């Protein structure tokens, strides 16, 4: 059934359809309506789940970790300061190999205080061992939550996943979303049953101290899990499509990339807008394309590399900036394409921080710029877009 709903509601429905058994969450703008909706589901009895009203996000994640260790499917949602407050225990969750699924409504970090979108919060978790999926539509949010459980709960993977959407632009935007039938979801996603869980009668200690002679092997196994996730994301999405008739593009969604001279690489809501821009520019005869990083973790290494072998210019748009380096998507895309024989010119565009709107016009100018630069070579590899006080006009 198709219904108009916000990204936040889509998220709540995703958790409900996945039959999350334990939900622990703490409010933060703009995530609140996810939690409110879930509290509603639980109160009305529509969802049979334990709702833990924790006193902080650190505790939200810690409670999820404990519940998941005891074999319950868990869910939480947060944003920005909440996400970063979880940082320590995010690392915990992946080290403990727990397939927790969480929504992060990506929002800028303070100071300056801001409740609007940018990806710094999510990007700053790139080293925590979580899978990270950036979504572009509310439908994708819902579908990805369901798929994420299936991807992560596989015994070869057993890692947590973060489903990311943009503050307000997605969380509070209403658009039509197809709500799949519960029975279909149930057939797609079986109940969670881990090989080992904490339970009475089995006196095991979960998470012990390990000496230097053995620690590394545990990390190696986690690496294998994340590696296996690449394939599994694709396989699960194929299965999803066969049941629900939809797909969202695997690790790297390619839109009009086949014959493109230049492509824009981006993640999140801006990628949706960019599709319009690609269409309009193609209509004017420009061979442009969009490569949307859907899975930032695992990073679409091979896909970026393959694409880099075919195009002349890659404009990488980052909605965050890593001080002392560059945009993270840019850095990682460059690293992936490093060994490509004939590399494209790659340029980083930092845009849309703290909720600054990224308009079609801006995207068009980015395409125009990369077209020029891919011929001429980049002067400056990283350019900040639409900053007041700089010469260049973008709007």
């Amino acid at each position, binding site marked *: 059934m198709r219904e108009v709903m916000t990204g936040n509601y889509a998220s709540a429905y995703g958790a409900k359809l996945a039959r999350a058994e334990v939900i622990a969450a703490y409010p933060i703008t703009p995530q609140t309506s996810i939690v409110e909706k879930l509290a509603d589901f639980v109160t009305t009895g529509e969802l049979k789940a334990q709702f833990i009203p924790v006193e902080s996000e650190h505790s939200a994640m810690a409670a999820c970790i404990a519940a998941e260790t005891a074999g319950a499917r868990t869910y939480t949602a947060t944003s920005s300061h909440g996400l970063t407050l979880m940082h320590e225990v995010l690392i915990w969750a992946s080290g403990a190999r727990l397939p927790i699924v969480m929504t992060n409504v990506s929002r800028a970090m303070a100071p300056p205080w801001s*409740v609007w979108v940018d990806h710094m919060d999510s990007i700053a978790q790139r080293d925590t061992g979580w899978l990270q999926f950036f979504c572009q*539509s509310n439908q994708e949010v819902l579908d990805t939550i369901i798929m994420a459980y299936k991807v992560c709960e596989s015994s070869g993977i057993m890692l947590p996943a973060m489903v990311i959407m943009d503050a*307000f632009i997605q969380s*509070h935007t209403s*658009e039509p979303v197809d709500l799949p039938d519960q029975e279909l979801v149930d057939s797609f996603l079986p109940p969670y049953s881990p090989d080992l869980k904490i339970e009475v009668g089995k006196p095991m200690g979960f998470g012990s101290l390990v000496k230097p002679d053995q620690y590394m092997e545990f990390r190696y196994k986690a690496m294998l899990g994340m590696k296996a996730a690449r394939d599994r994301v694709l396989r699960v999405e194929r299965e999803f499509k066969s049941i629900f008739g939809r797909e969202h593009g695997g690790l790297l969604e390619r839109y009009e990339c086949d014959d493109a001279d230049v492509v824009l690489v981006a993640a999140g809501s801006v990628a*949706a807008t960019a599709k319009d821009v690609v269409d309009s520019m193609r209509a004017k005869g420009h061979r442009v394309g969009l490569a949307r990083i859907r899975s930032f973790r695992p990073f679409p290494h091979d896909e970026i590399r393959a694409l880099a072998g075919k195009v002349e210019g890659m404009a990488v748009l980052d909605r965050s900036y890593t001080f002392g380096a560059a945009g993270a998507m840019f850095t990682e895309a460059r690293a992936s394409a490093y060994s490509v024989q004939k590399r494209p010119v790659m340029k980083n565009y930092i845009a849309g921080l703290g909720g600054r709107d990224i308009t079609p016009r801006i995207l068009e100018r980015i395409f125009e710029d990369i077209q020029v630069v891919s011929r001429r070579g980049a002067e400056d590899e990283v350019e900040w877009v639409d900053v007041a006080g700089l010469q260049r006009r973008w709007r």
Partner: protein
Amino acid sequence: MVVASEVLAKAAFKMGFEVSSFPFFGVERRGAPVTAYARIDEHPIRNKSSIYEPDYVVVLDSSLLRGIDILEGLKPSGKVLINYPAGKKLPDLPQRYKYFLIDATSIAAAHGIGSQTAPIVNTAIMGAFAKICDKVALEPVLESIREVAPVKEEENVAAAKEAYERTTEATP
């Protein structure tokens, strides 16, 4: 405001359109002005940026006419719907647009929606909008109101109906 755009989106969706509606909002404060946008189209809507060149502008609080330039970017063919006290003279506004007025505040108050000091005009104004907009009709708007209104469904529906009836064109 947010509710108004949601009602609109749902109504258009019922009529077979693809829709997308979103608030520009941060920290919600009762009283402080907010903006919301809605897009309606035959094709799925992918553009997630704000709307800079709207076809319609709906003003829920006439005091804003004194402040911000509410008409910024409005397309030449654009229409403007204003919640405006009945009988009061319209201020100076550019002649090139079509203006429609509705005293949604009074209607909402009369139907007991919101409090006396702060009547909630969201639903009434959407009734009026159904009148002036080519894409949405009254029935789906009323249906959407029924779905969205947390309380007093019928009062809201009645207010929207009344507003639909009483919307009038005006020239500044």
